[in-house]
Every structure is written in C-alpha cells, then in structure tokens.
C-alpha cells in the first residue's frame, strides 16, 4: 500500500488534533493554525484525488490491525477525495471572507473557541465522507451536530441561542431516528461495516425474508438524515440559525454541514442498502414529493422575506429540495445531477452569504431591503459578487447553477412517470428564484442620491475582495468546465458499487 493511502486518516486526525491545540493558543495563533490545517487537508485531498484518478480504483484502509468484519475501516474513492477537497476549498474561502467581521461578532476572548469548533467541524465532515463503518458515522454525525450548534450560538444574542436550541432539537430527533434505524440494520445483518451489511442485505432480499424490518430500517435512516439536512418541512430552525449567526458560520453551515449529511445518505444508499434495493423500497417517492414541495415552498417563503440574510437562508430550503428531487428520480443520472448540485449550491450559497455581508456593512448594518437600495454602488465588489451568485442560483449559463438545472432536466426526461412533475416544478422554481434574486439585484443597483451611508473602496477590504473573486471563479469554473467534474462524479459513483 502506498504512503498516500494514509492521507484520509491523517486529514481526520490532523483537524481533530488541531482543534485540541487551539484551546490553549491565543486567538491570532489559533487563526493561523486553523488556516494552515484547512490548507494542509485540502492539499492532501488534492494529492489523494490525483492518485485515485491515476490508479482508477478505490482502496480500503484498516484502522488498526484487524481485517474486515471486526476492524474499523476508512474507504477512499474519487468521490470521497473530491468531496473532501471541495469542502476544504469552501471552508477556507468562507473563513477568509468572514474574518474581518469576526471581532465585531464574537467576544475577543472566545476567538480560539471559534477555531476549535471549525476544526472539529472539518474533522467530523471528513470522517463522514471517508468512514466505512456505520456506527463511526453515527458518532461523527453527533460531533458534527455539536460543533455546528456551537458555531450558531458563539455569537451571543437571544436569536442565536434560540436558533441553536431549535437546531439541536431537530438534529437530535434526526439522530435518534438514524441510530434506531442503524440498530435495526445491525440486528438484521449482524454487521456494522458498510460492505458487509450490503452483502447481507442482498442475501435478505434474495431470500425474501424480513422485508418489513428492512424497509423500516431504511425509512428510519433516511428520515433521520432528511431531518438533519433540513429537507422541507423540517426547516423551521434554518432561517434563524443562518440569518443571525456569524457570517462565516452561516456560509459554512449552509454549504457544508447539511451537505455532509446528504453525502452520508448517498453513501448509505449506494454502499449499505444498494441502489436497486433502495429504489424498490418506495422511499424514493417520498423523497421526490418532499423535494418538490421544498423547491416551491422554500422559494415562496424567500419571496415574502424582508431580510436579505433570511431570504438567502430560505433559498437553501429550495436548493435542498432540488437535491432530494434528484434522489427521488431513482436513476444514475438523477444522482449525478444531485451530487453536482451539492457542489454548485455549496459554491454559490457561501458566495451569497459572504457578499451579502459586504452589502449590509455599507448600509449601516441593516439587512432590510429598503436600506440596501444602491448598496452595490457603495461596495462594488460585493455588488458584483452578489449578482454573480444570484445569476448562478437562477440558472444563467456560464455559472454553475445552469449546469445543475440542465443535468436535472436531462435526468428528468429519462424517468417515466416523474418527468412531467419534475420539469414543471423545476420551471416554477426557477421563475420563483428569479423573482426574489433579481428583485434584490435590481434593488442594490438602484441609484439613490439621498443615502446617509458611506461607501467603501478596494483599499479597505483587500482580503475580502480577493475572496469574492475566488468564489466567483469557482462558480464560473464549475459552470464552464462542468464535463470533467460530471465525469469524475460518475467515476466515483461507479467505485461505490
């Protein structure tokens, strides 16, 4: 086994360990450690991705000295490495883009705690991406929940604490269901490692035994992860949590935390239950219906909103709906579209959150639309970035959002019975997206003379502007050269089997 196969283990351990180290460091040093760790993990994931692309097959890494049914395992394929790399990029850019706001949002003495939480979050995301063991996945789901809750409530205002409580309640309901489903699965198969469970599930299905417990277990695990990733109608906690936490937290939570759970669900679908067995459980129809409802109702709530950050948060509900609609189609093409949308939404939503903070800063800190009039002239970089993000969300060519909508439409055409529903809802949802995003873009580009607020120039926000440029570039790269990414996703899914 090559040395590079240690990299998944190193990245999980490095981020976990650096979290502990940050607790004794002063704020500035903790910040540097945090950035270096994210960069190092990103570089390791990139090297691993190149290695896996060259060898063309996934590998299994023993955690300890015991082989399959007994030991704990890590598994890495193209999709896992690519996802880890992408998570690192988004996390680095989100941290960089929100860094200048942190002193105003969090008490100085708690800065190192903030970096502990970010490092823990990174390690739990990596573990969710790489692990091959269901119970390990459950433990890291809980670690992920706890650190995400910390990221919400580290800004101490009434709203964030209430949002953190609501987030915890929904998350705990979700993880309770996940754990119960997992225990039933263990009871049925006698295994905790994904590959072993899958073999036993195939036997169970072939023998025609224990059909009801199997379906119950699948349904419990799916529902648990849906609740945790804020699928409509489980999104009540989301607008407050994203709208009032620190800006880096909002960007990370919306683009990474919910995606970690969704990625775990994809792994469960492919590596635990098996794609064809999952499709025969009718669970996909449930996901499909709730996905479609989320696409419409999330956008409707966003239109009614008068607060720019809560509007972006509600838009996340709609985008999560898209991802579940792709799952619900029950085809390989739908799955590829969903995974591409995970990337596209993560890149766009964090861009929007970071850009929105630049706009509200030059409007006296107010997030109400009336005060935002003309703010794009006061902060040109943020204005351009917000427009780019909005265009991507609406699905204009050149940006990543267009490709994911195209992939969804192509996937929908191949599915009999669900084609009409998905295409109609896709169309309605695009129009609704355009309504609220274009409304905001027009609002920020409406020239106004009688404004009491000062503008800001490039000299005063170099780091922030550079981050925005990187975000836009990421979006455009995903939008322009999507074919290699789509091929990679297909290759990764093939490795899952």
């Amino acid at each position, binding site marked *: 086994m090559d040395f590079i196969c240690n990299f998944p283990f190193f990245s999980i351990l490095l981020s976990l360990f650096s979290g502990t180290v940050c607790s004794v460091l002063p704020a500035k040093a903790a910040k540097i450690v945090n950035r270096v760790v994210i960069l190092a993990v990103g570089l390791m994931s990139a090297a691993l991705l190149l290695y896996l692309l060259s060898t063309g097959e996934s590998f299994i890494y023993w955690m300890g000295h015991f082989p399959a049914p007994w030991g704990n395992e890590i598994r890495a394929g193209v999709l896992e490495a690519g996802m880890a790399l992408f998570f690192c990029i988004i996390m680095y850019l989100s941290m960089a883009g929100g860094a200048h706001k942190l002193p105003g949002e969090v008490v100085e003495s708690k800065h190192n705690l903030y970096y502990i939480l970010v490092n823990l979050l990174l390690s739990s995301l990596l573990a969710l991406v790489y692990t091959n063991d269901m119970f390990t996945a459950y433990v890291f789901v*809980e670690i992920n929940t706890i650190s995400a*809750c910390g990221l919400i409530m580290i800004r101490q205002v*009434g709203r964030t*604490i*209430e949002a*953190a*409580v609501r987030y*915890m309640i929904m998350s705990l309901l979700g993880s*309770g*269901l996940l754990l119960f489903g997992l225990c039933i699965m263990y009871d049925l198969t006698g295994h905790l490692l994904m590959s072993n469970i899958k073999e036993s599930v195939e036997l169970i299905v072939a023998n025609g035994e224990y059909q009801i417990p199997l379906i119950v277990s699948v349904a419990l695990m799916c529902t648990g992860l849906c609740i945790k990733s804020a699928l409509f109608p489980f999104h009540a906690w989301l607008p407050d949590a994203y709208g009032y936490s620190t800006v880096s937290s909002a960007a990370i939570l919306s683009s990474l935390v919910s995606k970690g759970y969704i990625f775990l669900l994809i792994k469960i679908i492919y590596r635990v239950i098996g794609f064809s067995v999952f499709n025969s459980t009718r669970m996909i129809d449930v996901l499909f219906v709730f996905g479609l409802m989320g696409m419409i109702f999330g956008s409707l709530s966003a239109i009614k909103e008068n607060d720019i950050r809560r509007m972006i948060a509600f838009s996340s509900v709609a985008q999560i709906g898209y991802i579940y609609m792709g799952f619900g189609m029950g085809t390989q093409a739908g799955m590829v579209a969903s995974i591409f949308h995970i990337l596209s939404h993560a890149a766009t939503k964090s861009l929007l959150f970071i850009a929105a903070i630049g706009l509200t800063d030059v409007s006296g800190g107010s997030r109400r639309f009336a005060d935002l009039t003309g703010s794009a002239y006061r902060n040109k970089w943020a204005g351009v970035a917000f427009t780019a993000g909005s265009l991507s969300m609406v699905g204009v060519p050149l940006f990543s959002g267009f490709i994911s909508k195209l992939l969804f439409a192509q996937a929908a055409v191949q599915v009999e019975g669900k084609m009409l529903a998905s295409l109609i809802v896709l169309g309605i949802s695009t129009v609704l997206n355009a309504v609220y995003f274009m409304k905001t873009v027009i609002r920020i580009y409406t020239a106004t003379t009688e404004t009491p607020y000062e503008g800001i120039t490039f000299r005063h926000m170099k780091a922030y502007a550079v981050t925005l440029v990187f975000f836009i570039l990421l979006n455009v790269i995903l939008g322009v050269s999507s074919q290699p990414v789509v091929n990679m996703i297909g290759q990764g899914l093939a490795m899952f089997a």
Partner: protein
Amino acid sequence: MGPNLFANYGEAVSAILFCIGFTNLLLQTNLIKKIIGLNIMDSAIYLFLAEKGYIAGRAAPIVVDGVTSAERYINPIPSGLVLTGIVVSVSVTALMLSLTIRLYTRYHTLDLDEISTQLKREGK
C-alpha cells in the same frame, strides 16, 4: 405476528418507549421536559440493543476456565455500542442543559414558544 410480538416483548417495549421519547422531544414546549424526552428516546435505543445482544442461557463474554467456544457467550458488540451511545447522549444532554440555562437567565422562562414571542416583541 402475535407469537413473534410476545417472544420479542423487550424490543416492542423499547419501540414504544422510543415513540414516547420522540413525541416528548418534538411536542413539549417546556425545555426540561424536552430534554427528558431526549433521554427516554436514547435509553429506549439502548434497551433495544441490550435486548438484541443478550442470548438466554449464555454467559458474559469473558473467558474463564479456558472455554473459548463462541457458543458459550453472548454477543459483546451491542454492549460496546450502548457504552458509546451513552457517552454521546450525555454530551448532547449537557449541551442542551447549558443552552437551557442561557435561555432561562435571559428570558426567565423555560417555555420555548414564550421565548419566541418575546424575541418577536424585541424585533431584533
């Protein structure tokens, strides 16, 4: 269905307890009652695991008198899972309780709906 249900009454009880805990966590407005619901829910899962790991008539999985045949012992893995699960549920309970204290010192009530109304009145 009937005889199976009777033979596995432990699992049936744990499923009922899970539902009780789940409903409490979801529907109670009092935060402390919610946390009690959380603990009932988690304990129900541990009961389920313990029931599944135990095999009547066998001994604890510790080798004594040199008997190494697996037929003599119960399955030790569910017990290990229960231990891990307890650690997780203790930490989330602690976090929930600390959040509850924060909210109580700020709003002098444990009622989550009441807190939401107060927040709306503040209008922030």
